[in-house]
């Protein structure tokens, strides 16, 4: 009998997934060798090498685009929309059937806690396929113009923070609208995309409809630059987004970008404080803060600052950091050594600028990439940690005195992806929400996603919308959003 409640380790078994010693590219319905130098992918929680993955060169990308073009012209494009819907439903059900396998693999490759891959990533990915399957034969009634037509071949490049979910956000609407895809997963997290390729085969999806080309930046560039790609969709950093916009400018290609963010989470003095503290935690520490819409700037009304900070400090002391496969882990590993270095650098800058850094006394594993949940108080809007996207479990706390000041500070960013408002007063929520320049505004909650709800940003957070009826427009000829 121990004196206090120590949860015993509750690790999820990794034996449910078979990781092959090496993986090829998925082109035209087959796994083929890549012509580039293979790369390795590691488990960020242990630095253990998981497997070797092919690198796609320009020639490989060309092969994939040609396969996608052929499938678009011969099978997928001419297919009855209702039949396309059937394939999407089949994929959605397979994702559910193999949910545990996907969750374990995602946690191994990405470092995120199994609680989140199991309860958020995989169910939401399946939900996106279900939702878009429903649209496949109803596009004429989507309010996007009469008889909307697919664009053709979509080149899609996705990030490492939600590898499977971002794949679903990209692939499901593209297929539902009749396009075929060439998708490049992030170099540090390719494994669930390759498992998804297996699901495509299991669903008997016609060859070439979904092609997956693994690799790093060069492979992504080849996808974006390919002449026969009609549509480019990218989620990732603002810097890369800018390069892509330059590349695509002046071509016929349609482009959507979903980039960085520095969201304001505004807590008014009449907020439900206990739930607001949960929302702050969910806003910034969900997925180790590797969330483009993370609530990384807390704007708290000065009159309740001390109370909220005390509650927040107590709360982050209860967060459990460690083995991602332990079902009780709240915060897993940072995805890569590079990202960890960036988080450390920005945090050190925060201190150098005079902000106060608060961290719980948690023990971090010896191996792997780890960063404890961190809160900076006494942050001013002029500090870099209040302006730059950290993309890690680091929260900056600022204060305000009036609603106008809250809005001014919230909008004072080069980004505009999301925001949060905490108040018990409905009229205030509605008024403030209309004044915020952010694609998503959550009220009394944070980081909630749903396939029916459009998602996207203002300013340097990109353009275009994903999800909902609006998301379909990005993959249809002549459809205005």
């Amino acid at each position: 009998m121990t004196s206090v409640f120590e949860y015993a380790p509750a690790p999820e078994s990794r034996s449910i997934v078979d990781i092959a010693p090496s993986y090829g590219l998925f082109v035209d319905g087959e796994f083929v060798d890549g012509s580039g130098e293979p790369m390795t992918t590691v488990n960020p929680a242990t630095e253990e090498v998981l497997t070797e993955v092919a690198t796609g060169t320009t020639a490989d990308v060309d092969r994939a685009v040609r396969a996608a073009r052929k499938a678009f012209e011969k099978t997928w494009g001419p297919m009855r929309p209702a039949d396309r819907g059937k394939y999407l439903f089949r994929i959605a059900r397979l994702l559910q059937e193999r949910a545990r396998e996907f969750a374990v693999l995602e946690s191994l490759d990405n470092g995120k806690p199994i609680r989140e891959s199991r309860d958020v990533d995989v169910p939401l990915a399946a939900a996106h396929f279900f939702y878009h399957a429903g649209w496949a034969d109803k596009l004429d009634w989507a309010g996007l113009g009469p008889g909307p037509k697919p664009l053709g071949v979509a080149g899609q490049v996705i990030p490492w923070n939600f590898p499977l979910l971002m794949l679903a956000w990209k692939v499901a609407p593209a297929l539902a609208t009749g396009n075929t895809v060439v998708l490049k997963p992030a170099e540090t997290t390719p494994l669930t995309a390759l498992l998804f390729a297996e699901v495509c085969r299991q669903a008997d999806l016609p060859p070439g409809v979904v092609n997956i080309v693994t690799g790093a930046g060069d492979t992504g560039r080849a996808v974006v630059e390919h002449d026969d790609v009609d549509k480019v969709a990218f989620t990732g950093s603002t810097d890369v987004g800018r390069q892509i916009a330059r590349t695509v400018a002046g071509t016929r290609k349609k482009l959507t970008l979903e980039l960085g963010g520095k969201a304001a989470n505004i807590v008014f003095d009449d907020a439900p404080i206990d739930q607001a503290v949960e929302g702050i935690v969910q806003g910034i520490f969900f997925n180790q803060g590797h969330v483009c819409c993370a609530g990384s700037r807390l704007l708290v009304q000065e009159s309740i600052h001390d109370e909220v900070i005390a509650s927040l400090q107590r709360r982050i002391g209860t967060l459990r950091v460690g083995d991602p496969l332990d079902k009780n882990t709240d915060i897993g590993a940072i995805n890569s050594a590079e990202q960890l270095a960036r988080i450390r650098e920005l945090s050190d800058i925060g201190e150098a600028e005079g902000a106060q850094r608060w961290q719980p006394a948690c023990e971090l594993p010896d191996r792997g990439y780890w960063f404890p949940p961190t809160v900076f108080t006494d942050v001013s809007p002029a500090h870099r940690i209040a302006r730059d996207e950290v993309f890690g479990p680091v929260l900056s706390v600022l204060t305000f005195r009036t609603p106008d000041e809250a809005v001014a500070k919230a909008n004072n960013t080069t980004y505009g992806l999301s925001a949060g408002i905490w108040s018990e007063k409905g009229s205030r929520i509605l008024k403030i929400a209309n004044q915020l320049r952010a694609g998503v505004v959550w009220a009394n909650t944070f980081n909630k996603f749903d396939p029916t709800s459009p998602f996207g940003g203002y300013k340097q957070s990109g353009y275009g919308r994903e999800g909902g009826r609006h998301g379909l427009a990005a993959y249809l000829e002549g459809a205005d959003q």
Partner: protein
Amino acid sequence: MTHVIDPDALSGATPAVRAPLAPYDDVTRSGASLRTFLHGLPGVDQVGAEARVAQLGTRSIKTTSKAWAIDTAISMVDLTTLEGADTPGKVRSLAAKARQPDPSDPTTPRVAAVCVYGDLAGVAREALGDSGIHVAAVATAFPSGRASRAVKLADVRDAVENGADEIDMVIDRGAFLAGRYLDVYEEIVAVKETCGEAHLKVILETGELVTLDNVRRASWIAMLAGGDFIKTSTGKVSPAATLPVSLVMLEAARDFRAATGRQVGFKPAGGIRTTKDAIKHLVLINETAGPDWLDPDWFRFGASSLLNDLLLQRQKLRTGHYSGPDYVTVD
């Protein structure tokens, strides 16, 4: 420099420089001031509270921590019989079970208390002898609380004289819902005085208060009035103890200690029947109010059928297989 957060400094356990209740000593000066205070407490967002308990419900409790949790939960049970058909014989057999919950394993911990109607408190006291197990009696016109104050206080006096050292009172929900908060407060103060040495558990009957905002306000009234425990339900009204209600009451107890330095216990009662439910509550305490409350002095389960499920799970851990209901005693 990096500030490492010190959990002890945040617990609020040592603001002893202030006199007890110092920040709130004039809150109860009038009905209006009490009302203003209660309505100034932070609101509770129902959706958020439900999401939080759902998230805590996914904590996975295995092997050693499960063994600890089961034994701790057993030691926190207020073994209860509150039926019109209760007899001295039934109370005596319950007392025997309280002393030795599992005859097949003498290492099983004893429960915290036996909870009965006031007229049977004497029987329970005698049967429990010097075992150290408390006798809790429900009083104040339990479960409805619909009687004059004089009758309620007489009920309390009677139970204490019969040997109860813990009194479970019900608040006047009618007065609360009508907004007469000061009446509710004064009645609890009067009952507490009448209790003398006995510990007072204040039952809010949260199923009748309905909203979580009401639950928080009623919790504060009970704590300001000097209740030693706040308790969710009588067990006679559904819904009884739900996890969101427990979350809000634990938050209230935590905030009250941080502000006044005084710790108040918490007792969910009614509807907690399985080991799984009990462990979810232990997780909730651990991560809401903190481990200081993980002790029979500060936390109780009001339950009648929970104990047998805990015993069956305990036997399972010991023997490796599940046994049937005949391997534990009926009462």
